[in-house]
């Protein structure tokens, strides 16, 4: 078992050693450089679970900016914004079963929308995971999202008919 565990870890490190687009540019010397270059997102880490949303569109402002920069065509950006809204609702729902169920419905629809507007299942899956990473990006938000997930244990979530997109 330890041999296989070690192999799993080694595989991760080997992946880390691979070249290509994931390497920092020669000019980057710090994490802050990576942010300035746009290789890492600049994210809100305030204490507020929902985070700032100055325009009131339901999407945290930093994620709005990320979508505008990296989200692709307008239809895909709309899908990612729908997904961001649903993750925000999930974080705010926390462990309340009724709120979690409603948030899960929105999230399932939004996941379907992003998957429908992605080039492949892999691309869509990764886009969904990336939005979760950015949405639940403080300890408080992680704990809230885990409470939301736990509240859904044993439930049944239906995939939407159609593409799930709100627009």
């Amino acid at each position, binding site marked *: 078992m330890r041999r296989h565990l070690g192999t799993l870890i080694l*595989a991760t490190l080997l992946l880390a050693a691979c070249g290509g687009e994931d390497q920092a540019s020669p000019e980057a010397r710090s994490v802050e450089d990576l942010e300035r270059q746009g290789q890492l997102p600049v994210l809100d880490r305030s204490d507020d679970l929902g985070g700032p949303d100055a325009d009131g569109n339901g999407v945290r402002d930093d994620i709005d900016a990320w979508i505008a920069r990296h989200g692709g065509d307008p239809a895909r950006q709309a899908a990612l914004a729908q997904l961001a809204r649903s993750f925000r609702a999930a974080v705010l729902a926390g462990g309340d079963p009724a709120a979690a169920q409603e948030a899960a419905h929105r999230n399932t629809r939004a996941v379907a929308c992003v998957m429908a507007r992605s080039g492949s299942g892999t691309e869509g*899956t990764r886009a969904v995971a990336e939005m979760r990473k950015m949405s639940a990006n403080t*300890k408080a938000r992680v704990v809230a999202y885990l409470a939301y997930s736990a509240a859904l244990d044993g439930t049944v979530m239906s*995939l939407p008919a159609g593409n799930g997109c709100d627009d």
Partner: protein
Amino acid sequence: MTSVPSRWARAALLAAASALAPGASASGLCPAHTHTLAFFNGVWNTPDAAASGAQALLAALDEALRTRPGHAGLSIGAEVFYNASGLQRGARDGIEDLVEVFEQRAAELDETLRRRWELFWEIIDGRQVWWRKIAAVLPRAYEVASALTEARNARLIARTASLAAHPPTEADYAAHLLRLRALLALGRSVLLVGHSQGNFFLNTAYRAAPAPSATAAVHIAPASSRTSGPHLLSGNDMVIAALRGAVPGEPPPPNLWIPPSTEDVTGHMLAETYLDADRNGRTATGALMADGLLGLRSPEPRASPGYFTATLAWDGEGDIDLHVVEPGGAHVHYGARIGASGSLDLDNTTGYGPEHYHASCDPARLQAGIYSVGINNYAAPAGRKATIQIATADKGVIRTVQVDAGPPRGEAGDASPLAVLRVAVARVAGAWTATVH
């Protein structure tokens, strides 16, 4: 005539009358699915990860079906039969203490990394895109990431061993089983698909399913030694290989070789490996699912779809009744099956259920307002646990609750059933909604 024979007579009438309604083609507000793909996710999967996995499976199934005769006329819905195993607060070998490990180890490396909880998710998901970028400027990040990955892997293996030794029970996941029974009662065939440890939960549901010819199981990368149907396991799947000898029982043998890829070096991920469009796993997975689904026989429908439905089951022999009081005051139960807005189309007088009420799919008949859903323990021993599940046509299951059915009350309890849930049906700007209170 005593109350019990009177009730049996009504049951006979019910059986005759119910032939009019069940399996009626869905119309109006209700989709007309013929089959359901039920996905069982692996442990430590968040709901969004499970949903994207199910979506990817549905796409692969759809592709495979298009190449086969007999697919015309199929209408397939998909549902995630979700387990949050390992994500619950206080769960042994759970994610909770990895939260603390992350906080400590990331702070040792760089105080600013301790605040970057997006990196926590990368460890959980096994996709370390941003870790790699950071490691290019902070080489010690490799060491921290590998330590966190080792901690994650150890907990996942321990959790898998725990599931193998103590599989989930029907009682633990009563909502899954009740939904499965409701789908079968509606005349839908069900294809159960599990990934990784999700197959433990699949096995529990499959073995309790009442219609063997209408359900089929497909196991993808199974962590469980027991299977309920054919499986697919890549010889490159390093996660399942790591489980051999580490958990009770042996996972089944590999039967496919999916070439390795940097997209997923573990060779275990559902979307990145088994459903990757550029490798052979996708067609193999699609074929297994399509063959399983096309081999199903539709069960005889015994219940009708509804804009919302209420399904009741209980945990033993005896008779417990479902009661629904509609907004207009109609009290629907075994003695008065047909209301103004819906009807009781399944009655069970012997044990376990199910009983089923559907509110009409016809917007001209469906009433807006409050539906009071309750139960009466007619003739079951005290101590029975009753499970009621509310599902809607557009959202699927929206609530499942379990209550103590109380002492048996016979006919005397019919006038005052135990109220359990209220379903609020509303129509706003032409759109119908149903919420549970």
